[in-house]
């Protein structure tokens, strides 16, 4: 289960059932925090304070890794920027504490924005290495700059005061930091379950599918990265207060390693894990600093690094999900044992408890990290016979209700215009100067032999790839070469030939993602938890669409467990959930049973009659001829025919393209090929 699924399975609305886990967890943590200063000795208290301080950058990093699927090796740089800015504003400008603190956080976020804007456009290793570089820059800058006190650093500013009480011992300081950590924790947890969090989780399953539903991956990633730096900056603010001197060593690389280790131990991308990891790493660090010099006489400096390196490698190799994986596995085992006991104790019990493993506090690392072996899915109710059940009686009865359809253009007017679309790969021309217009409220079929460039054409229209030359005009706006979310935001949605299922969530979670472009809540509202109602509304719509497509009974099933044909139908549901003006279907019939094909064809006709414009790429020529109002034929990247089905069927060029001497033979041959495949 992922962020997406967790929120999706929570079908009942209401504050308490949906936040039960978080509230209980935070309350328990608050009680522990309250007690600690009374029970811990002074050295433990010191460790506890630093654990809380470092929990903040760790929470930030876990958001970055869990949501953006990226890693920062320079979390210490943002931590240091926060610390320095805070200290300088206090000491040199004598600003009040809260103002200086805000300054520290904002400075860290601005630095992240500067690095993130260029780096997050690129995939792969660039952000990690750039943040690593930033760490060096910050260290060099504070060391070389007179203003930051060179190697001595900044000192000589006061301690914080709350209601006139100076926070001058570790116990008080611990309580001083704790509320911020708890609030940060709640904000982060809310974010992972919010519209934005679920969208980013979907991006980690399939970036292309998420963007085709309107998710602006880049913008969301930049925001999450900036936010994660804000958490680090806040940690730096408290650090500055605690140590009373900010020197270049705060920016050192091993601090970044330490923060990363906290997240890795806690479970990549788990917010609760980050807090646990912070305490564990601080304890480990203190222990190693005592232990190593005892074993190896004369060892000085950052000797704890040996433990950091070993633990990093071992956790990734042996326990890639970290502590969170352990907790999940243990909980799943307990639930299973409990179920078995209660079942044997009371054989006539009504219904076995369904996904009770969900305490609501959960959030799990996403697939970006390869998934978790111990991951428990909250289903188990649906047997194979339920899956094997037929689509159901009559075709008409199969589509009782119709999802909403947007009709921004009068029927017959062009909604999509393609001009001179060309794609060259080196010397190979995949699509050559293709032009056509799609009138609104019609079904257009795009056919052609294998390798004719149909999908390439599709990908250029939807923004998955940029055309070499040519224009794509959708609703009067040129969208060629723009990212898929640009078209999607305007009402252009697609399905995929090779299914792009969000496999870390369930069926309703997938369709819910289709509602993304209809939602409004941004990161801030998500963090504050002020979007529950919006989410429930969209989830209800997603369920209605599933019901109307006879998929309602599978709503809670993991999307990846659906049979192939139903996954295809689910993708259609997901696309329809976006209430598109133009629906592009890439081989929607492939892999469907005869009955399912009929049902889909009937649905598409009804949708067209309701005003939806549909373009479909299809292999099944007979289906296209029967369904489409107009047919375009591509052969070897060139548009060889375009017109109504009857004209195209008799077009000599089309017949030649399909290797037959006459249309019937060509069709027969194709059908044969289809059956073999």
């Amino acid at each position: 289960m992922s962020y997406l699924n967790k929120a999706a399975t929570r079908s009942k609305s209401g504050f308490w059932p949906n936040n039960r886990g978080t509230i209980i967890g935070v309350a328990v943590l608050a009680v522990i925090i309250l007690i600690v200063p009374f029970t811990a000795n002074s050295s433990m208290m010191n460790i506890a304070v630093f654990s809380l301080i470092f929990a903040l950058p760790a929470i930030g990093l876990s958001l970055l890794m869990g949501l953006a699927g990226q890693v920062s090796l320079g979390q210490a740089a943002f931590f240091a920027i926060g610390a320095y800015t805070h200290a300088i504003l206090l000491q040199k400008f004598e600003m009040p504490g809260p103002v200086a603190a805000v300054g520290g956080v904002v400075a860290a976020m601005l630095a992240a924005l500067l690095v993130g804007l260029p780096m997050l456009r690129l995939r792969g290793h660039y952000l990690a290495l750039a943040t690593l570089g930033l760490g060096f820059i910050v260290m060099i800058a504070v060391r070389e700059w007179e203003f930051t006190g060179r190697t001595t650093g900044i000192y000589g500013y006061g301690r914080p005061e709350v209601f006139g009480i100076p926070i001058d011992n570790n116990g008080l300081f611990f309580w001083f930091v704790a509320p911020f950590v708890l609030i940060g924790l709640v904000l982060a947890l809310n974010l992972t379950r919010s519209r934005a969090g679920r969208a980013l989780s979907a991006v980690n399953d399939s970036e292309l599918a998420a963007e085709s539903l309107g998710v602006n991956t880049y913008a969301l990633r930049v925001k999450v990265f900036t936010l994660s730096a804000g958490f680090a900056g806040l940690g730096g603010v408290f650090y500055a207060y605690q140590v009373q001197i900010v020197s270049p060593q705060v920016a050192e690389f091993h601090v970044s390693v330490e923060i990363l280790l906290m997240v890795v131990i806690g479970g990549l991308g788990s917010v609760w894990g980050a807090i646990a990891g912070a305490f564990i790493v601080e304890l480990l660090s203190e222990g190693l600093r005592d232990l190593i010099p005892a074993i190896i006489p004369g060892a000085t400096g950052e000797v704890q690094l040996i433990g950091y390196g070993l633990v990093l490698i071992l956790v990734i190799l042996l326990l890639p999900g970290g502590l969170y994986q352990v907790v999940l596995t243990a909980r799943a085992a307990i639930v299973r044992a409990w179920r078995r006991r209660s079942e044997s104790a009371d054989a006539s019990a009504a219904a076995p408890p369904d996904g009770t493993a969900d305490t609501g506090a959960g959030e799990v690392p996403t697939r970006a990290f390869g998934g978790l072996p111990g991951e428990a899915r909250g289903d188990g109710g649906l047997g194979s016979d339920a899956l094997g059940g037929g689509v159901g009686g009559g075709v008409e009865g199969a589509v009782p209700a119709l999802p909403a359809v947007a009709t921004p253009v009068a029927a017959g007017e062009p909604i999509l215009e393609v001009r001179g679309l060309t794609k060259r790969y080196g010397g190979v021309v995949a699509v050559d100067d293709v032009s056509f217009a799609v009138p609104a409220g019609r079904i257009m079929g795009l056919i052609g032999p294998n390798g004719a460039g149909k999908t390439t054409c599709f990908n250029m229209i939807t923004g998955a790839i940029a055309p070499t030359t040519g224009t794509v005009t959708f609703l009067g706006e040129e969208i060629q070469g723009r990212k898929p979310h640009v078209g999607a935001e305007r009402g252009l949605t697609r399905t995929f030939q090779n299914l792009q299922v969000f496999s870390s969530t369930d069926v309703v979670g997938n369709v819910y993602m289709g509602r993304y472009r209809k939602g409004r809540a941004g990161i801030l509202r998500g963090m504050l938890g002020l979007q529950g109602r919006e989410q429930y509304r969209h989830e209800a719509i997603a369920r209605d669409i599933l019901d109307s497509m006879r998929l309602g009974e599978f709503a809670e099933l993991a999307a990846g467990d659906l049979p192939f044909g139903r996954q295809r139908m689910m993708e259609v549901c997901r696309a329809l959930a976006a209430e598109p003006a133009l629906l592009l279907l890439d081989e929607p019939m492939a892999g469907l049973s005869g009955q399912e094909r009929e049902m889909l064809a009937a649905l598409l006709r009804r949708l067209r009659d309701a005003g939806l414009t549909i373009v479909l790429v299809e292999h099944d020529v007979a289906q296209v001829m029967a369904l489409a109002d107009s047919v375009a034929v591509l052969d070897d990247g060139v548009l060889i025919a375009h017109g109504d089905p009857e004209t195209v069927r008799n077009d000599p060029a089309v017949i030649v393209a399909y290797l037959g001497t006459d249309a019937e033979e060509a069709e027969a041959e194709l059908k044969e090929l289809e059956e073999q495949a």
Partner: protein
Amino acid sequence: MIDFLQLTAAGLSQGSVYALLAVGLIATYTVRHVVNIAQGDYATLAGLGSISLVTAGLPLPVAILIALVSVTLASVLIERLVISRVKNLTTLVSIILTLGVSTLLQAIMLLIWGAEGRRLPAFPGSDLNLGGVSIRSQELWMLGALVVVGGGVLLFYEKTRWGKALRASAEQPVAARIVGISPAVASVIAFAIAGFVGAAAGVVSSPIYLSIWSGGLLLGLKGFVAAVLGGLVSFRAAIVGALLLGIIESYVAGYVASGWKDAVAFFILIIVLIIRPAGLVLRPNAVRV
């Protein structure tokens, strides 16, 4: 003008060290899609190791040879024990994993050799004076190492059957297997090359630039910047980029302030990634719009 040439010469020799590290990074990246954060640590490991061997009384060439072989083996060992153990090596996991290796190597070096930087004795040879520009013999050794080791790697990849197959295995594991190279073997060879070039960079630069336990990270980052200039695939472009980086650093150290020298690489990285993420490689069939 003499200053300028002097700085250029120093930059070229320093750049040759980055070039060797970039070659190592590209070798592992093309085969495993891993940016090995421990690449620079191979250099410090070889430097510190050979210093100890020389201190123990071994002749310099023998000490260097042993260091080169040991670090190469260490790199292969890291591949076998750590990298190859992960089935689904995503970018994120590979970063964390090689960071773990780098941290572990650094900590081991800290515990064995302490926190102080050390220096290998200078290699034999006399300094060169060209019209007022003096070039230290060690700098010539550094450039020579690039020509011999870097050139050797280039020849291996471009001229030998194995080298070509190795590059191919990055793109087409199945095809490479047909030619006779399994992905596992390809990976081992790549890490062996990375270890060897890293070690070579470490020993030739140690007499001038010291070997210190924590120095590898920055060296590796600069190698990475050079590798990015080569689009993470082209050895030639990366080598040119590394030499340029060395020269620019040298000018900054000479004309601005030596403390800022290490910041140059990062700014270049950002600028290059903004302007031309594909690197300096000129693609013959680049798409023209």
